[in-house]
C-alpha cells in the first residue's frame, strides 16, 4: 500500500552547510499530518526557547501538504513555517502554485533550514540529491528575475521559491515568492530567509506521490467537481448592489459558499471588491472610514469586469479546478503579471483611498517582485498617510512627499521607498507597530495591527468572527483561519457531530452577542483550517462546503486510515494547540496580541455599514480558549490538554 507522504525531511544547516535527510516515524503523520502540522512538530521540538527570529536558531521550513499529489483537488498549497520576526510568535505563510508537489517529488515532505550561511546561497535538489550553490550573482535581483534565471538554468520543470530584495534587506513584511508572483507573504518569513542568506530553493525531482486507494481518490474528486462549475449570471457592475443589499438588510441568512465559488471562478478574489466596500467588510481610510467615504462613484474603478478585461488567461494552482488566479496585461503598461488579489487591491486602493486601478496593478507587480506583503505594505502606507494628515509626520519626515488620502503618486513613491529602504521608507519597511514606536507622538493609535501583524482587508466590526481570529490565534492578525462567514460556508455541522447549526434567518445584531455557540464555531474554524493547512488544502475549495468537498474522505482514502471527521478535528486541535504551546514556550502572552482598539470598534464608527459596532473580544476570549482546553484567563494550554493531545 502506498503512502501519501514520503516519510522523510531534509534538515539543512546553513552555518556548516550540512544536509541531513531524516526519517520521520509514521506516528508523527498520524498525529499531525504533514504541512503545517509537521512544521509545528519540528519547530516546537527543535527550536530553543527565546530563539532570535533573525538569528541562527530560528528554523525555516518549506512544508508540502499531506494531500498534495494524491489525486485530490484543491490540495496544492504549501506552508512556510518559522518563528515570525514580525510578531515574535509562531509564524506561517501559505502559498499555492506548483511548489508543494515539487517538495514531494524531491523525495521529502518538508525541507528545513537552520543556521546562517556565511554568504548568499541557494539550495538545488535534483532527484533527491541536494547541493548548496553560491548565490552571490543572484543577491539583489528581484524575485521574478531570479526565478526566470534559475528556470533557464535548470529547465522549466524546476519549481523555485525565492526572496526578493525586501527579504534580503530584512524588511519584516517580506515574503517568499514562487511561480512569478505567488507569494507566501504573511508573518514576515521572507526576512528569516534573508537573514539566513538563503536566496532560493530550487526543486527538480520525479519521485512519485502515492495514495492508499487511488481509485477512491479519483471517485471522490469527480463527485466534488460538479460543484465547481456553477455559472454566475450577475454582471460585474451588479456586485456593488449585492453589497448594498447585504448592508441594508436587517436580517441575514447563512451564506452558501457556492455563491463565492462562482464569483471566484468568474473573476477571482477581486470579484468581491465593490461588494465588500458596500457591505462594510472592507476597511477603508486606515480603518477609520466607511462605505460613505468610498462610495460606488469612487469604487467603480475596482469593478471586477474591468479587471477581467485585462485577464489574458486563467491561472490555476496545482490540482485546482477553480482557477481563481489570472495572468493579466493592463493597458500595455504591465504585461503578463499576476492578477491582483482582493486583499492587494483593497489594501492599495480603499485603505489608502486610492482610486487608480492602474497604480494597483503597478504596485502589485512591484511588491511581488520585491517580495513584500501587499496587505502590510498597503496598511503601512495608510498608517503613514494618517500620521501625515494628523500632523504627526511632517513634510521633512516624508522626504517632501505630500502624503494625503488618495494621492496616488505619493503612495507609489512611498512604497518604492519602502522597498528600497530609503529615507522614510526605511522607517516604514518594518510594519506599522515598529514604525509607530519610533515615531511616537501618539501614532500607535493609528497603527492597526494585532501583535505586530496588519490584519487583512476584512473588517472584524462587520463580521465579529474575524476579530476573534485576529486577536486570539497563535498567529495574530490573520484572516485565513476563521470567521463567522467562513463557519457558515464550511458547513462543518453537516459532517462533524456536536457543532452548532446557524439558524436559517437571524438579525445582524445577534452576531455580536457573546455566547458559547460563537466560541464553538470559532474554535471549529481554527481546528478545521489547521487540519486543512496540514493537508495542503485551499480555503477557497473548502468554502464549497465540507459535505461537497470531501476533505475527510480524501484524507482516509489517501492514507488508508479509517478516522471519523471528529477524530480529524482532533488532529486540527492538536496542531492549533501545538502552535499555542510554541508561543508560550517562547514567552508570548496571548493577551498582548489583541488587535488595535479602532478595529474592534472602540470608539465605534459614527456612520456607514459598521456604525456603532463593537466587538468585545475580552469577553469572547475565555470561551474560545476553553474550547481547546486552554486556560480561560491566560490562554495557555493546560497540562492535561497537552497530555490528552499527546503533545507531552
Amino acid at each position, binding site marked *: 500500500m502506498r503512502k501519501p507522504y514520503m516519510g522523510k525531511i531534509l534538515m539543512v544547516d546553513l552555518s556548516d552547510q550540512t544536509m541531513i535527510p531524516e526519517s520521520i516515524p509514521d506516528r508523527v503523520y498520524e498525529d499531525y499530518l504533514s504541512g503545517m502540522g509537521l512544521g509545528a512538530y519540528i519547530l516546537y521540538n527543535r527550536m530553543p526557547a527565546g530563539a532570535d527570529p533573525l538569528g541562527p536558531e530560528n528554523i525555516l521550513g518549506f512544508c508540502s501538504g499531506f494531500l498534495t499529489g494524491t489525486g485530490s483537488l484543491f490540495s496544492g498549497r504549501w506552508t512556510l513555517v518559522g518563528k515570525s520576526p514580525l510578531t515574535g510568535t509562531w509564524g506561517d505563510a501559505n502559498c499555492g502554485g506548483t511548489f508543494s508537489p515539487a517538495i514531494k517529488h524531491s523525495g521529502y515532505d518538508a525541507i528545513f533550514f537552520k543556521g546562517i550561511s556565511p554568504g548568499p546561497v541557494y539550495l538545488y535538489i535534483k532527484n533527491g540529491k541536494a547541493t548548496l550553490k553560491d548565490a552571490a550573482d543572484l543577491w539583489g535581483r528581484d524575485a521574478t528575475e531570479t526565478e526566470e534565471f534559475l528556470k533557464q538554468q535548470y529547465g522549466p520543470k524546476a519549481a523555485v521559491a525565492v526572496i526578493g530584495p525586501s527579504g534580503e534587506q530584512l524588511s519584516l513584511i517580506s515574503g517568499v515568492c514562487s511561480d512569478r508572483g505567488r507569494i507566501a507573504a504573511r508573518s514576515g518569513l521572507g526576512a528569516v530567509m534573508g537573514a539566513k542568506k538563503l536566496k532560493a530553493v530550487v526543486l527538480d525531482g520525479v519521485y512519485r506521490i502515492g495514495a492508499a486507494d487511488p481509485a477512491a481518490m479519483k471517485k471522490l474528486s469527480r463527485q466534488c467537481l460538479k460543484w465547481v462549475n456553477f455559472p454566475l449570471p450577475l454582471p460585474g457592475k451588479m456586485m456593488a448592489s449585492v453589497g448594498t443589499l447585504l448592508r441594508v438588510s436587517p436580517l441575514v441568512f447563512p451564506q452558501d459558499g457556492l455563491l463565492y465559488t462562482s464569483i471566484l471562478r468568474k473573476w477571482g478574489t477581486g470579484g468581491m471588491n465593490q461588494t465588500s466596500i458596500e457591505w462594510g467588510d472592507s476597511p477603508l481610510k486606515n480603518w477609520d472610514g466607511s462605505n460613505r467615504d468610498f462610495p460606488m462613484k469612487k469604487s467603480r474603478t475596482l469593478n471586477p469586469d474591468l479587471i*477581467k478585461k485585462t485577464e489574458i488567461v486563467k491561472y490555476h494552482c496545482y490540482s485546482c479546478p477553480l482557477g481563481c488566479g489570472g495572468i493579466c496585461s493592463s493597458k500595455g503598461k504591465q504585461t503578463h503579471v499576476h492578477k491582483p488579489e482582493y486583499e492587494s487591491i483593497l489594501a492599495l486602493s480603499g485603505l489608502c483611498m486610492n482610486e487608480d486601478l492602474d497604480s494597483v496593478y503597478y504596485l502589485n507587480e512591484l511588491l511581488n517582485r520585491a517580495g513584500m506583503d501587499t496587505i502590510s505594505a498597503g496598511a503601512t502606507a495608510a498608517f503613514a498617510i494618517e500620521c501625515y494628515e494628523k500632523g504627526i509626520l511632517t513634510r521633512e519626515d516624508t522626504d517632501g512627499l505630500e502624503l494625503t488620502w488618495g494621492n496616488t503618486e505619493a503612495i507609489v513613491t512611498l512604497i518604492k521607498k519602502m522597498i528600497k529602504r530609503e529615507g522614510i521608507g526605511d522607517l516604514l519597511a518594518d510594519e506599522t507597530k515598529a514604525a509607530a514606536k519610533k515615531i511616537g507622538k501618539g501614532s500607535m493609535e493609528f497603527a492597526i495591527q494585532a501583535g505586530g501583524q496588519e490584519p487583512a482587508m476584512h473588517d472584524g466590526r462587520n463580521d465579529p468572527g474575524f476579530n476573534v481570529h485576529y486577536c486570539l490565534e497563535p498567529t495574530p492578525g490573520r484572516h485565513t483561519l476563521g470567521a463567522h462567514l467562513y463557519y457558515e460556508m464550511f458547513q462543518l455541522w453537516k459532517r462533524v457531530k456536536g457543532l452548532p447549526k446557524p439558524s436559517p434567518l437571524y438579525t445582524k445584531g445577534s452576531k455580536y452577542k457573546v455566547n458559547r455557540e460563537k466560541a464553538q464555531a470559532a474554535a471549529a474554524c481554527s481546528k478545521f483550517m489547521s487540519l486543512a493547512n496540514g493537508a495542503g488544502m485551499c480555503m477557497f475549495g473548502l468554502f464549497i462546503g465540507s459535505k461537497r468537498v470531501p476533505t475527510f474522505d480524501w484524507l482516509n482514502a489517501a492514507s488508508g486510515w479509517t478516522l471519523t471527521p471528529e477524530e480529524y478535528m482532533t488532529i486540527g486541535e492538536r496542531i492549533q494547540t501545538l502552535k499555542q504551546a510554541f508561543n508560550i514556550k517562547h514567552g508570548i502572552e496571548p493577551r498582548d496580541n489583541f488587535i488595535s482598539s479602532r478595529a474592534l470598534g472602540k470608539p465605534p464608527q459614527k456612520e456607514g455599514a459598521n456604525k456603532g459596532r463593537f466587538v468585545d473580544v475580552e469577553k469572547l476570549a475565555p470561551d474560545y480558549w476553553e474550547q481547546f482546553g486552554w486556560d480561560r484567563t491566560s490562554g495557555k494550554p493546560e497540562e492535561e490538554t497537552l497530555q490528552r493531545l499527546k503533545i507531552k
Partner: protein
Amino acid sequence: MPYTITDKCNGCGACARVCPADAISGEKKKLHSIDADLCIECGACGRTCPQSAILDAEGALCTMMKRSQWPKPQIVIKSCIACGICIDACPAGCLALSERPRNKGVDSFPYLKNPKACIGCGFCSTECPVDSIIMVKPEKTTVQES
C-alpha cells in the same frame, strides 16, 4: 517493487540515458543497475533496452519497442479541468499549458509540447482525475495539437 536489470545487460547505457529519475548507473560495457529508491517504474528503460535485459515491477521481461511506437498522451480538452496535475506528473517535462494568444480570461489547457521527450510512461493518464488523457500508439500523426 522497482525495475531490475538482469545479467544479459551489455552496458550500452541506453537505459541510463532515457531514465528520467537518474536511477540507473553503471560503467560503459559493464552490468548496469537500478537504484530501487530512485526508480519510479516508468518503464522507459524496459522499452529502450536492446538486450531485453530489464524486468518490470512484477518481474516480467520487458520488450524493446521503437521509440516512434511508444504510446503518447492524447488530451481530451472537452472534459479537461485545467488542474495541471498531468503537467506535474510528467517525469519528462514534455507537457505544458497552451500559450494561446490573448483570449480573455479562459483556462489554458495542457498539450504535448515536446513529443520527442515523451517516454510513454502514461503517468499523466493515470493521475488525471477526470480521465481526460488516453495513451495511444502513434500510427502516423494522432497527436492532437491544441
